[in-house]
């Protein structure tokens, strides 16, 4: 086991025990999902002859005291360096990495090297204060061993400096939950964050965008091109788009609105009038709606066709020809009932249902939904027109941010 930082200024001797130079850096090759094998050693030659790259197989042992080579320097040929190779000290040490399991951005304080299957590899990243103290020769401060060591498995980490690595980062990141990706985007700086968002596919980018905190999102919108933002917003549910529009300065918001598809833009403009904390602001306009005269089979067919465009479909909302809210039918009801029945027969009639008004504040909405144990509730205006649907997760998010201040 070897810490990279202990090699600082270590002298390099060849097989005749002659001092040939000083340690400068270690090069490792990046292999996906593996401990990075150490490839070569960079030596600053004596008398200012520049740097010399030596294959790691020539290195006999390496420690704080010195690095010994197993051959004469004159016999060693300079090793190849691939563009994908990483200089550990220059590019990794002291730089930021993304800790994928922890879903956050941290700074590398030290690197741990070790032998795995006979090869020297980079095993772990030390992000603890202890590593910092060790590098400053201040280990003695921690006499009682109070400071915990925090290591991150190399395979679970990703470099973030420069846009190249950010692109590589996105490969690993795709498997994470959008909310975790959002945390990482928040932690990165604007350039890196926008790079990362750009490298994601649009659907993921849209989900990530919903989760990012409003302030960071505002900055990101500025950093990304308007076209890109428009593409991302196309994949977002309309209520989230409206939230985004509300958080933007007037000019940017207007520009983004003009990029929306015309049908969505009209609805968005209507939704924009409602306050954030009222039923109108909370509701989504994307839900499955069907006519009262449809048969169950038709509705199920419709769901099969369009279900992928909706986040949740627990209920089907039934309206008459003039979009008056008539009732709801749960999924269970649809599946268990006879396919030839009409919705009129299957649905729960609106008379027995609690509906919400668009101007009702969050508090009332939450109380009603809790009292009547609703997963979702229809928002209906004075003329009984169905405006939208509030689902539990929208309420949950608002409440959590109220209670825990996150």
């Amino acid at each position, binding site marked *: 086991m070897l810490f990279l930082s202990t090699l600082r200024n270590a002298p390099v001797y060849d097989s005749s025990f002659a001092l040939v130079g000083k340690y400068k850096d270690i090069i490792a090759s990046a292999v996906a999902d593996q401990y990075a094998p150490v490839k070569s050693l960079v030596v600053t030659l004596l008398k200012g002859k520049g740097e010399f790259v030596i294959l790691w197989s020539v290195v006999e042992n390496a420690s704080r005291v010195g690095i010994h080579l197993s051959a004469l320097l004159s016999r060693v040929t300079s090793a190849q360096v691939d563009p994908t190779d990483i200089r550990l000290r220059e590019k990794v040490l002291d730089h930021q990495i993304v800790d994928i399991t922890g879903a956050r951005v941290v700074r590398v304080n030290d690197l741990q090297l070790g032998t795995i299957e006979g090869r020297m590899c980079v095993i772990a990243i030390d992000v603890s204060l202890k590593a910092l103290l060790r590098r400053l020769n201040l280990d003695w401060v921690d006499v009682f061993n109070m400071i915990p060591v925090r290591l991150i498995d190399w395979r679970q980490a990703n470099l973030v400096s420069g846009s190249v690595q950010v692109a590589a980062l996105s490969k690993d990141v795709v498997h994470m939950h959008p909310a975790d990706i959002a945390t990482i985007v928040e932690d990165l700086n*604007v350039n890196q964050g926008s790079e990362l968002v750009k490298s994601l596919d649009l659907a993921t980018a849209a989900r990530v965008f919903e989760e990012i905190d409003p302030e*960071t999102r505002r900055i*990101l919108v500025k950093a990304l091109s308007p076209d890109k933002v428009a593409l991302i917003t196309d994949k977002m549910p309309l209520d989230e788009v409206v939230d985004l529009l509300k958080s933007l300065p007037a000019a940017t918001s207007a520009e983004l609105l003009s990029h929306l598809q015309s049908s969505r833009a009209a609805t968005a403009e209507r939704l924009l009038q409602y306050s954030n904390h009222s039923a109108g602001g909370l509701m989504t306009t994307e839900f499955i709606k069907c006519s009262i005269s449809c048969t169950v089979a038709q509705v199920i067919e419709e769901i099969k066709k369009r279900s992928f465009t909706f986040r949740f479909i627990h209920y089907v909302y039934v309206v008459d020809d003039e979009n008056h809210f008539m009732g709801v039918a749960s999924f269970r009801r649809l599946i268990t009932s006879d396919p030839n029945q009409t919705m009129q027969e299957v649905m729960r009639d609106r008379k027995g249902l609690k509906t919400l008004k668009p101007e009702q504040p969050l508090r009332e909405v939450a109380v009603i939904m809790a009292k009547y144990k609703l997963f979702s509730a229809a928002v209906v205006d004075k003329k009984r027109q169905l405006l939208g649907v509030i689902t539990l997760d929208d309420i949950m998010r608002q409440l959590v941010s109220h209670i825990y*201040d996150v």
Partner: protein
Amino acid sequence: MYVSVCIQCKKLLSRKNLNLTRKYTELFYNLMVPIFKRWLLRASIILSVIGPGIISGAADNDAGGITTYSIVGAHYGYQMLWLLPLVGLVLWLTQDMGARLGLVTGKGLAALIRENFSIRLTVIVIVLTAISNWMNIVAEFAGVASVAHLYHIPKTLLVAIAASAISFVVIKGNFQIVQRVFLTSSLLYLAYVIAGLKANPDWAAIASGSFIPHFSMEHGFLFTAIALVGTTVTAWGQFFIQSYYVDKGVKDADIKLMRWDITAGTLWTIVVAFFIVVATASTLYPKGIQINDAAQAAAALEPFAGYLAKHLFAWGLLNASLLGAGVVTIATSYLITEAFGWEGKVDLGLRESPAFYKLFLFFIITAGLFVLIPSIPLVPTIVFSQALNAMVLPLLFICMMVLLNRKDIMGMKTNSRLNNVLVLAAILLVSALNVSYCYALVSKFFKIL
């Protein structure tokens, strides 16, 4: 009958009126809205970029600033005025460098130093900056304590209230909104401009003081001169402005606006400083008053505000101290977390970084307690903190110069030669002041022996 007619008439009238009003409103609306919208658009663009420079410019005139400038004027008259334009130039140059570093790299100064210099140098820079910033926070609380002194309130009470108010706003509330309040109220400094003009200053003396350098190797002079530099050009300001620009995510194209922002901030700092010096130099200097507490400094506002001078000064100082304490503490906690990888964001994401809060509270509490030491001389503490600031500057500027000249960091936007020469001159100027002060200190020490 009569009543009903009246009501009818009234209704008619009002309907007619309503129509007329509506017509005019529409006309007005059609005319004004496009103008207003355009204006709003422009204002929003400007507002979104303008900020960091002006904030740090206003926060520069904090408790340390007011006190130091007052002492410069009261003790040395117009003699040090020539330093102000020079210091302003240095402020502009270095803030511009910091902002450019932030814009190009998207990283804060602390992160850049950590990534590009050795860990030892990083720790040295961060620790020195933290110490000088801590002294700055102490100075801000000393400002609060001075206000307490002016009103004969126990300083413990006011300092405790101030410390808890700042902590509460930063941790629980939204500092950005409060910051705007402070920024607006820093217009109080205009009082100094008026006071300076109304005090019948000797314009010939001002001109000669501004253009003919006056220098002395006397210990007090050098100390005050260093404090003057250190209060205007600050280490925390460098970190603050860069981080702020990084978080704002301003595009390359906005560099022009950024320059306006920085120019406006610098001008505000220097103009206010100039008038504080003029006001104190024309009221206190002729009487030979040595400023030992806030009440004497407040006397400089008397030509303008008369018996209200005390209150004007107190509120200005309180405002400056609170703004300064908030900004400096945030900047310091942030730069430490950034250098050691315990990051959070300056804007709203703060809640994710517990290290930030711990540091923040640590600085606020220790600095507050330090001021509460009985019989601590407030004014000398403030001036000392500003001088300490200047001692850290050369090291910081050298780091920035190195970073700005590296092609792999700045790409095509490396420092121009003119810029390099000017900043080098600034570094030399500040170092020369530091060295000559140390020399004066040592020789004074030997004289005593």
